[in-house]
């Protein structure tokens, strides 16, 4: 493994240095039919799950075949995507915000061959490489974070929980039988890199044990005042600790005030909190971001804790399925999961989804908690 230099000279880092040029400009990647009709689209239609047509004012059409993507993908897989794009789409493709891949062709006659090609490609283990779907009143790809594959704060895995869930709801990826779109999102800790807090169903990794204190290193590695100020509940204070016969500067944690957000660990690596038993999954439901009919909503916690059950998280997928089936059976056309829950009332939501309501689901975090308690005699038995 000989080192290959690209031309960068560490002796003179500023020589010929190019910086701050930004991303590639978007329009150099547009397929010709997109470049020609930008801003002139008249309407669109979903012809079947995963297949869209957009029609322009002048009559031009673009057919899009949408397939699920893993988000985590290797160059071998990307090269295969490129090969498909070159074979069918003159070398053009795009990704959606939910990590689907879209192959676009400018003529209906090209759709069948493209679909057939995509459907026949499978991994040796049996899974599809490019399943077609993810449109309309169904379930599209799950946006998610890194999890155990590459992150230092997760309480669960991301790619694994998503694979397990998408296998379980796969029929709804390839169907449009639901009352409205149902968006599932996944974040492996409270930081929520993916901001899953406004999803129809959110899978959230969560720690349940206060941080451990690595007294020997804490003062050497961390800025103690930063660790203290990072705590949103004020549970951390400075402390002098006896450590192997020496007095060291460290911190003390008031465990009862800890709500396990992990912000102290983000500021101070000597306060790790991950744990095999403590860590697991929170399920949230009823959020949305669109302004359609009702206003955007936050997801609500509906299951306070499920254990990490590797590799397929069966309790989690079972609970998600219960919610989807109850919603599918009971909601009205166009009604999002959260709109349905509000119409029937949350007490009824827990009945219909066969979920247990526990004390953990009553908000006790600061002022906003008050606005979630019931100040009325209007409720259902």
């Amino acid at each position, binding site marked *: 493994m000989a080192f*290959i*230099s*690209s*031309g*960068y000279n*560490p002796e003179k*880092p500023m020589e010929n*240095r190019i*910086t*701050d*040029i930004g*991303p*590639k*400009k978007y329009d150099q*990647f547009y397929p010709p039919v997109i470049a020609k009709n930008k801003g002139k*689209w008249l309407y*669109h239609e979903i*012809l079947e799950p995963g297949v869209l047509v*957009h029609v322009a004012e002048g009559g031009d059409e*673009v057919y899009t075949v949408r397939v699920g*993507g*893993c*988000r*985590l*993908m*290797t*160059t*071998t*897989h990307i090269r295969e995507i490129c090969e498909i794009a070159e074979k069918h789409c003159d070398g053009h*493709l795009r990704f*959606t*915000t939910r*990590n689907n891949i879209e192959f676009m062709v400018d003529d209906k006659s090209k759709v069948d061959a493209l679909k057939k090609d995509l459907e026949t490609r499978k991994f*040796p283990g049996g*899974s599809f490489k*490019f399943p077609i779907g993810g449109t309309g009143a169904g379930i599209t790809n799950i946006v998610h974070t890194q999890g155990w594959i*590459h992150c230092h704060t997760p309480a669960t895995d991301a790619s694994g929980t998503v694979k397990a869930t998408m*296998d379980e709801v796969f029929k709804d990826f390839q169907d*449009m039988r*639901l009352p409205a*779109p149902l968006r599932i999102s996944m974040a492996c800790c409270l930081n929520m*890199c993916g901001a899953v*807090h*406004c999803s129809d169903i959110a899978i959230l990794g969560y720690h349940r044990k206060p941080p451990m204190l690595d007294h020997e290193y804490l003062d050497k590695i961390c800025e103690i005042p930063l660790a203290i*100020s990072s705590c949103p509940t004020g549970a951390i204070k400075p402390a002098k600790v006896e450590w192997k016969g020496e007095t060291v500067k460290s911190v003390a944690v008031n465990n009862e005030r800890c709500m396990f957000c992990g912000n102290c660990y983000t500021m101070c*690596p000597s306060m790790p909190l991950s*744990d*095999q038993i403590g860590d697991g999954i929170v399920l949230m439901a009823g959020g949305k*971001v669109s*302004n*359609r*009919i*009702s206003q*955007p909503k*936050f997801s609500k916690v509906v299951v306070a804790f499920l254990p*990490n059950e*590797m*590799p397929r998280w069966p309790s989690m997928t079972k609970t998600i399925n219960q919610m989807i089936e109850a919603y599918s059976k009971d909601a009205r056309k*166009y009604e999002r999961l959260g709109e349905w829950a509000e119409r029937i009332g949350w007490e009824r939501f827990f009945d219909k989804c066969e979920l247990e309501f526990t004390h953990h689901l009553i908000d006790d975090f*600061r002022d906003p908690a008050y606005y979630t308690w019931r100040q009325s005699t209007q409720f259902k038995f």
Partner: protein
Amino acid sequence: MKHETPLLNQLESGPWPSFVSDLKQQAEVRAKNEENIEFQIPVDAVEDLLGVLELSYVDGTTHWKHGGIVGVFGYGGGVIGRYCDQPQNFPGVAHFHTMRVAQPGGKYYTAEYLRDLCDLWDLRGSGITNMHGSTGDIIFIGTTTPQLEEVFYELTHKFNQDLGGSGSNLRTPADCIGSSRCEYACYDTQALCYDLTQEYQDELHRPAFPYKFKFKFDGCPNGCVASIARSDLSFIGTWKDEIRIDQEAVQAYIGGEMPPNAGAHSGRDWGAFDIQKEVIALCPSDCMKYEGGKLEINNKECVRCMHCINVMPRALRIGNDRGCSILAGAKAPILDGAQMGSLLIPFIKVEEPYDEIKEVIENVWDWWMEEGKNRERLGELIKRQGLQKLLEVTGVTPDARHVQEPRSNPYIFWKEEEVEGGWDRDIDEYRKHHQR
């Protein structure tokens, strides 16, 4: 394979694409190395990554260390240091840093360009990516410190391509597909996103903020990039005039010639389309009626929720007087609970060179950089100092659109200059009429 992975192997079955199968195929490609690539990081990095992930599946916790300050010269963002906490067992991933590569607007690509990225990352990294990260960047996962400058040099010199943002920076702005392929787009999301990204490269690469800052651009109130939930400044397309109606097409929907909601509900028999039930009755502001075979909209009362347009895209179209609304302060729960974006600018034209928009942004930043505490997101500062303060620093005239409802407590913080005669009064004068 170098490591047994019985738990991960169970994720190879089932219909959804298996990331485990993909990683295994990558491990094989590297081991065989038919292209004779002089790999610049360990050839077995992917096998070791599978090994360390299997270990996490066994013991239910991560094996990545916290932190590690690495980067490219002159930038404070774009690279995230990552080290394995079991380097003796998995030397191939002992150093395994992430590089964020700024993605193009709308995430359109050519195969040629993606292959160039693959060539670069096969040579100098693990060949593993995220397409895409949550903020939108192309993510290269896994390389060693000596490769960072080399990757950056090749990206900039060969591909005319920059790194994205990380840390207390402006994060790589992200947009929806916009007018490039969507009839609902009220402005060119890609053009605005690109212009602001270029304008604020310094803020993107050199940390000067209290914490992260995100721009996201939605072309319409449907919100496909979820800007209202996850960006400090959210730009959502909208319009001020009338929804355009094609009455013939309305009849075609009623007659069943066109599928409602662009065919999105075709997986179930919901019965014949009923305009009264599915459109008129669901309008949140009750501003529509269908009488005498004609659809009428009282546009003054319309709140532009998009429902009727979504249901009948061939009959109803967005208005012509278009622009965007700007909302401020959305974020995920850390630290002080989740926040949705709050309306700051009800309507602003989106026209090059976007000076009006840039003025809003810079006023917000000036305030936040002056007043924001370490790791305080804009939304938390707005909560701490108040929406009134945000309106004041941005010079926005308050109106009823800024609130769901007026305040129900009368604890109003009047300023001295707002009260006639000021606050200084003469106690002796007062005592002349009021005994002690």
